[in-house]
């Protein structure tokens, strides 16, 4: 699906969420347009991860509306989910499987995935030569790179990334920033939590308190 830049993609309105006895958000509003990256900032416990999980439909203890291209994600999740790639705190990489096998599954869930594409994505992520080693032999940063390969393979419109930089080295950081730049050039949208200063043009910041 090709959409013109600047068009509204994801819209969050009147979001209310409480955790335990504490109100996390009240009247939170957020709009992401095509070709836009929004960085979510805030101190620990301000609900960055919760916000991302709410957007992806992993957390339903909220009130308010979330729409994707005009349709509420609660009622019409299929369209939304097939244009979403979510990478959470946990990398979603099984330790006994190889990067190749992990990606065959997690990308195969969404689209027909060719091994050739997986090899080239892993190569782009700097994991050439590790395609067939079991993931428990890889470092945390390398596992994160396996997880990030999904961004290349899924070609989703919306990326939702929770602290994607934490375990990456300087090269990895540059690599991911490059991916984000390419993504918005193509008209994609992204919602990212990080404390890192993102080197991405047109970045918008959402501060949570």
């Amino acid at each position, binding site marked *: 699906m090709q959409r013109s830049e600047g068009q509204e993609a994801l819209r969050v309105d009147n979001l209310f969420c409480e955790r*335990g006895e504490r109100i996390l958000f009240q009247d939170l509003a957020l709009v992401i347009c095509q070709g836009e990256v929004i960085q979510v900032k805030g101190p620990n416990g301000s609900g960055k991860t919760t916000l991302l999980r709410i957007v992806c439909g992993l957390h339903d203890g909220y*009130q308010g509306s979330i729409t994707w291209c005009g349709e509420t994600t609660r009622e019409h999740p299929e369209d939304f989910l097939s244009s979403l790639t979510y990478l959470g705190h946990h990398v979603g990489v099984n330790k006994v499987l190889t990067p190749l096998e992990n990606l065959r599954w997690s990308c195969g869930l969404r689209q027909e995935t060719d091994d050739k594409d997986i090899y080239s994505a892993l190569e782009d992520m700097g994991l050439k030569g590790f395609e067939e080693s079991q993931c428990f032999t890889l470092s945390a940063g390398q596992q994160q790179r396996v997880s990030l390969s999904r961004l290349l393979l899924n070609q989703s419109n919306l990326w939702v990334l929770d602290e994607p930089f934490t375990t990456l080295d300087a090269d990895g950081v540059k690599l991911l920033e490059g991916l984000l730049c390419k993504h918005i050039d193509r008209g994609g949208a992204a919602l990212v939590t990080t404390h890192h200063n993102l080197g991405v043009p047109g970045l918008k910041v959402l501060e949570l308190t």
Partner: protein
Amino acid sequence: MWLWFAKLGSPKWFYDVSDRWLPWLAGAMALFMIVGVIWALLFLPPDYQQGLTTRILVIHVAVAGTSLAFFPLMAVAGTITLVWKMKLADMVAKNAAALGAWFSFVTLATGSIWGSVMWGTWWEWTDARLVSMLFQFFLLLSVVALRSAIEDTDKAAKACALLSIVGCINVVIIKYSVEWWNVLHQPASPLSMSSDNANGPEFWMATGVMIIAVYLFFIVSLILTTRNEILQREKRSQWVQDIVRAA
């Protein structure tokens, strides 16, 4: 808008309404309970076949009948929790599980006291009702256990709601399969607990009074524990703080 109403309006509404109803319900319960217990335990004429043991059966039947209401109640409350996210439903369901386990236990206990006299044994696997009551007891305990294992109130509410629905369906299947198992293992014993033909009309009248008493007891305890739960969970809200200050 509706969600806000359901979330904030309902517990307070329940608290206010129950405040008005509680004295009447409690009074009626006390009346029926006193009449029922005294009648059943002191004045009911001995049965020609069972003798005085028939008197405990009055209480047993009443408690057993009430204990069957718990799983359906919890399943309905669970459905409301999962579909409409109404917090009040979970406040009711939370205490229903423990209360139901207690009712099932009393049913089993009175049943085996009766059995110890009539059958000469405290436990009898050939009575299908005792066996399925035992498994209902276990299932209710598992809901209580799941609730206490999950710290997050919201998550515990949803998990227990789902388990109550699954458990309710299961109790029905267990009931029928245990009866089936029972029939094939041994023909129904002549002294089955139903004793429909053995007891006279006075027995059933006393039982009727007792059933009403136990149901009222069940409703009153559920209301009391729910009110308690409301105060705890809504302690931040203004109206609860007003009540606390006034007290």
